[in-house]
Structures are given as structure tokens and as C-alpha cells.
């Protein structure tokens, strides 16, 4: 049982016939994800790794029955349309892998999801993985061992790096969620933490943040306010990043005096969340709080 998805989650892949969509459909199937359909407009009738492809989400739902979640691989210019189509067809979890989406499209997508009770993860996320059950996204499965640590991250490869460090020291993961590296994202630390708190399989959390915005600071406040229900260790990237420069992720920018490393680290430590100096220190800090 993951916090969002598990082995019974029925999954749709939007953009299944594209290079990334098709490649990762195969890897997700190998992991055990229950993919039931794919959608690519104009490619209806094709079959990708044994999965039937439809022109529209409506047709997919009509043919294969209810769909719980969708993973979106469509190019950035068409992502908004794809996400709205998923939401309007009643899909309750949408994981948006696509990067480089217009921030205005993101605002529209996120608000439409909220109005319709849909959980949106991303955009620009490596996805969601429930260890040993399901993977909705592009995370390299082999670095994630099954265990009791929940992971919430703003980054992709850094998540793999830290998950590997955890594995080296015998720590496995329950659910791993990439929130996405963009300024506007569907789910933030607070919303995901609430789900981890209710998850009996998660004993502690690792949060992986980076410079830009004030999501870490806001979470620190919330964590204290709600009684610090589960222990957390954090790592924040970007200690040496200069202000005013976007560090790859659209969201990773120190601007208007907001979002620098020091402010995040202080806020987290004040909330009783130890912050690792480097990724390889995370397991040690975890052993100290568990």
C-alpha cells in the first residue's frame, strides 16, 4: 500500500507511442505497474508492449473500464491539453513527467485539478514509486529497496543518488514522490507529508529540497504546527548557487530575497529536522533520529 498508488492502481499512459513514453512503459510494466491503456491522438488501434492505444482518454475508459491514474509523457506544448483531458474524464491521479511546460499552462492545470478533486504530481517530475508494487514515472527501479522511509523530492537524479546511499546502509523506501522542479506544481511537501503521516508503512521521511521559493520554509512551519508526527531528515541542494541565476530547474532560483540555502536550512533545523551537509550523510542522520 503506497500513499498514492499500489499494485492494483489501473494506469493510463498519455503519449505512449513517443520515444520516452514507449521506453518507460516497458520499464514500468517490468516493475509490475498495472498499465491498462495508452493514448496518443491519431495512433488509436496500435499496440505498445501489449498495451492497447486509443485516440482519446474517453475511448480508453470506455474500452478498458475505470482508470485510476495517468502518466503524461506528451511534449510540453500539448501537456496542458492532455492533463485537462485526463481530469475531465474522471482520472483522479495525474503524474506529469513532461518538462518545460509554460508556467501559465501549469497554473491552469493545477487549478483545474484542484477544482475536480484530482491529485496532480509534477510537472517536471521523475514520478511516483511504491517500492515493490508500482512505478509511475521514470525512476531507475534498481536503486530503490523496499523499506520504511518515505521520500519527497524536488529533483530527479538527486533522489536516485540519495536512495542509493540509503540502500547502501540498509534503508529501503516505502513511497518515493518527485514533486517536480517547476515553480508551479500540483502537490507540495505539506500535502504529501499528510499522506505519509497516515501511511503505516512509513516510519520516517527524507525530504530533498533545493534553493528557490519558500516551500521548505512553509513546510517547516507546518511540521512544527502539526506536532512533528514522523521524524524527518532533509538535504537541500544549492548551497553554492548564486542569487538571480536559474539553476536548471525553472523553480531553482534565488530571487527577491527569497529561497536561499541559509533560510531553508535554518527553518528546517529550527523545526527539528536535521539537514545533511552532503547526500552521503543522510543515512547517518537517519540512524540518529530513528
Amino acid at each position: 500500500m503506497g500513499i498514492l498508488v499500489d499494485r492494483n492502481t489501473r494506469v493510463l499512459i498519455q503519449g505512449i507511442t513517443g520515444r520516452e513514453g514507449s521506453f518507460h512503459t516497458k520499464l514500468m510494466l517490468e516493475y509490475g505497474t498495472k498499465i491498462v491503456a495508452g493514448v496518443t491522438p491519431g495512433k488509436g488501434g496500435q499496440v505498445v508492449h501489449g498495451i492497447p492505444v486509443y485516440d482519446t482518454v474517453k475511448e480508453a475508459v470506455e474500452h478498458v473500464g475505470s482508470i485510476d491514474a495517468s502518466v503524461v509523457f506528451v511534449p510540453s506544448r500539448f501537456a496542458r491539453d492532455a492533463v485537462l483531458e485526463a481530469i475531465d474524464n474522471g482520472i483522479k491521479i495525474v503524474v506529469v513527467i513532461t518538462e518545460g511546460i509554460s508556467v501559465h499552462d501549469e497554473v491552469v492545470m493545477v487549478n483545474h485539478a484542484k477544482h475536480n478533486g484530482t491529485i496532480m504530481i509534477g510537472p517536471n517530475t521523475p514520478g511516483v514509486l511504491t517500492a515493490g508494487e508500482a512505478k509511475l514515472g521514470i525512476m531507475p527501479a534498481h536503486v530503490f529497496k523496499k523499506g520504511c522511509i518515505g521520500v519527497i523530492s524536488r529533483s530527479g537524479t538527486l533522489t536516485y543518488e540519495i536512495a542509493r546511499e540509503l540502500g547502501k546502509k540498509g534503508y529501503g523506501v516505502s513511497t518515493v514522490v518527485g514533486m517536480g522542479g517547476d515553480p508551479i506544481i500540483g502537490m507540495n511537501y505539506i500535502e504529501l507529508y499528510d499522506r505519509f503521516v497516515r501511511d503505516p508503512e512509513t516510519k520516517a521521511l527524507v525530504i530533498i529540497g533545493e534553493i528557490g521559493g519558500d516551500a521548505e520554509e512553509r513546510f517547516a512551519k507546518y511540521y512544527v504546527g502539526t506536532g512533528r508526527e514522523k521524524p524527518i531528515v532533509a538535504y537541500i541542494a544549492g548551497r553554492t548557487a548564486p542569487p538571480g541565476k536559474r539553476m536548471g530547474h525553472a523553480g531553482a532560483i534565488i530571487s527577491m530575497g527569497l529561497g536561499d540555502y541559509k533560510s531553508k536550512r535554518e527553518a528546517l533545523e529550527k523545526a527539528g529536522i536535521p539537514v545533511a551537509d552532503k547526500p552521503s550523510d543522510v543515512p547517518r542522520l537517519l540512524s540518529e533520529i530513528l
Partner: protein
Amino acid sequence: MKLYEFEAKKIVRDYGIPVPDGMLARNIDEAVEAAKKIGVPVVLKSQVLVGRRGLAGGIRIAETLEDVAREAENLFNTRIRGEEVKYLLVEKKIDFKRELYLSLTIDRAARKYVFLASPLGGVEIEELVKQYPDKLLKLYIDPATGYSPYMSRTAAKFLGLSKETWKDLHSIMNSMYKLMIELDAELVEFNPLAVTDKGLIALDAKIRIDDNSLYRHPELQDKALRELSPREQVAKKYGFSYVELDGNIGIICNGAGLTMATMDLVAYYGGKPANFLDIGGGATRERVREATKLILTHERVKVVLINIFGGITRCDEVARGVIEAVEETGAHKPIVVRMLGTNEEEGRRILEEYGYKVFSEADEAVKKAVELARR
């Protein structure tokens, strides 16, 4: 992407928002000509993309045509926070009673559009607002419903505007929202928005366009390159991200988070990163080659540190790109590689064949790079 003030003002004027009469000057003669047409006194405003230009002396008032010539010469010969002044905006000097702050932007936490209004217009709004948080009004807008006139009345009351100007403010805010959506702006800002006897007027205008939306605005696309250094332009062309820093250890990684973490690790072990370079997800051999060439040929770089955690990125593709870059540039700088993940074995084999040691642990690789940079 930032627009120059004169570009922003042209757009703003087209949307019906009042701005002072102004002309663009590329040299002293043009500045004097403009001042003659507009009529002194005028304000000379250096057109630069860096912020806080006024505090850096980039704005001058000229009472006479002689003043104009002298001040224009001064401005053309100064650098504003390191930026060369290529244009001056010559504007009619406006008498005003009060300076307000008004902007429209996107709130990351609320995930909505937000109008910010403050009676404390002029300079350094961020600082003032920190000091007087109750002097800032936030009005959130859901994209599904958009702007509604009550917002302008709420803002007008907060700003202490007389009833006669309520309509002006509504028209300005309505246009700002329209402009924001139609141009895919991430910021539309008037600081100050001045209160005059004749109503409201935007004395300054700032517009920033969302980079990811530029494909919808081909007329703006060329402008996006002008903010970038030559190296950043190469990066843009080949699809990776590059930011210049001031150390001597060149860094190449995949993924923004891992790249920043690698920079931090370099600093942790006592080294100084020369750059941020993220080759992005699923980089081709060509992209890796160009990225590596960029770092190898950077005069300040003593050691190249490559840290790859291959998920969507394939290690063999990276290795081939690196080798090609070395062969094309003939550079002899040491290269330290840490590589893990997809097609790791093949990537390792290729690099070891050329005599490079490949590390598995990030800490070990970084320590090695720092040690080499010290020699």
C-alpha cells in the same frame, strides 16, 4: 526573459495604460533631439536589464538641453551594475503627488495569479514590505475566473485613492491581467505607479516573459538570447543549462538537483566550482560533446568533474561524447569521472580504454578533483 523598459512601455501603452511621452536615444545627439521634441525638463533613463537601476545612478533628471547632453554622456559612459548602457529612454518629467506599487505575478505557494499593491511605491519595494508587511495587499486570481472589477475597488481603497481614480485603476488592472495572459508574462510591474492631477500614470514598467512560453511568441524569441553570455548561448543551442561561477573545477552532471549537489560537494571538500552545467535528461552524445568542449576550453577550468547518475541518460552515450570532446579540442586537462546507472559498464569501459579512472562514489570523485585542482 526580461524586456527593456522601453519595450515594456510600448506594450503597456498599446494596452491602454498611461505612460509618459518618451523617445529612445542611442547617442547623445539623439537624446538632445528627443528632449527638444518632448520639451524639458526630461528624465533620462538608462535601458538595462539589471535591477535596482535607480540606486545605481542610472536615472537622471535634466532641466535644460545642456543638462541633457551632459547627463546623456555620463550615462552612456557608465556601466550600471556591470551592464553597458546602449539606449536611453528620454521621457517627459511628470509631477506627481504620490508613488504607488502595483504588480501582477504568479504566486508559487497559492498556485494562482496575484496582484500586489502597496502605497509604498518607489525604490526597494522588497525591503519596505519586509519592514511593513501590512502595507502590502495581495489579491489572488483563479485562472478559471480571471480578473474581476471588485479587485480594483479593493486595491483602490487600500491604496487610499479618491473615487475619481477608481475607474483608472480598474482599467489598468484589467489591462495588466489581459497582458499577462496574452503575452505569457510572469511579471507585470509598475514601480512607481504615480498619482498625478490628471490621474494614474506608470512611470516605470517591468515585464518578464515566461521562457517556457516563448514558442507562442516568435516575435520575442530572438530577444531571449541577449541576456545570455556567449557560453550560455552555446548551452541554449545544444539544449543544456549552463551558469558561470568563479572557481576552477568545471562541473558536468545530469539533473539540476544533482548538479547543485555536486557543486556543493566540491565546496564542502574545499574546492571551487567553475560552473553549473546540467546536460539534462537523456542527453545525446552530441550534446555531451559540446558541453564537455565548453568546459574543457574554459581558461579558468583546471579540472573537469563529471558526475552522472544515469536513469534516462545512458552512460555509454556520455562517455563517447566526452572522448570526442577531448579528441576535438586536444585539451590535456585532467578529467575525473563518476558514473552510475544505465549502461554503466559500457561507459566505464570506453573511458578506461582512454586511461580515465571512473569512480562509483561521488565523494571519492569530488575529493580527487579538488586535490587535482590544488596542484
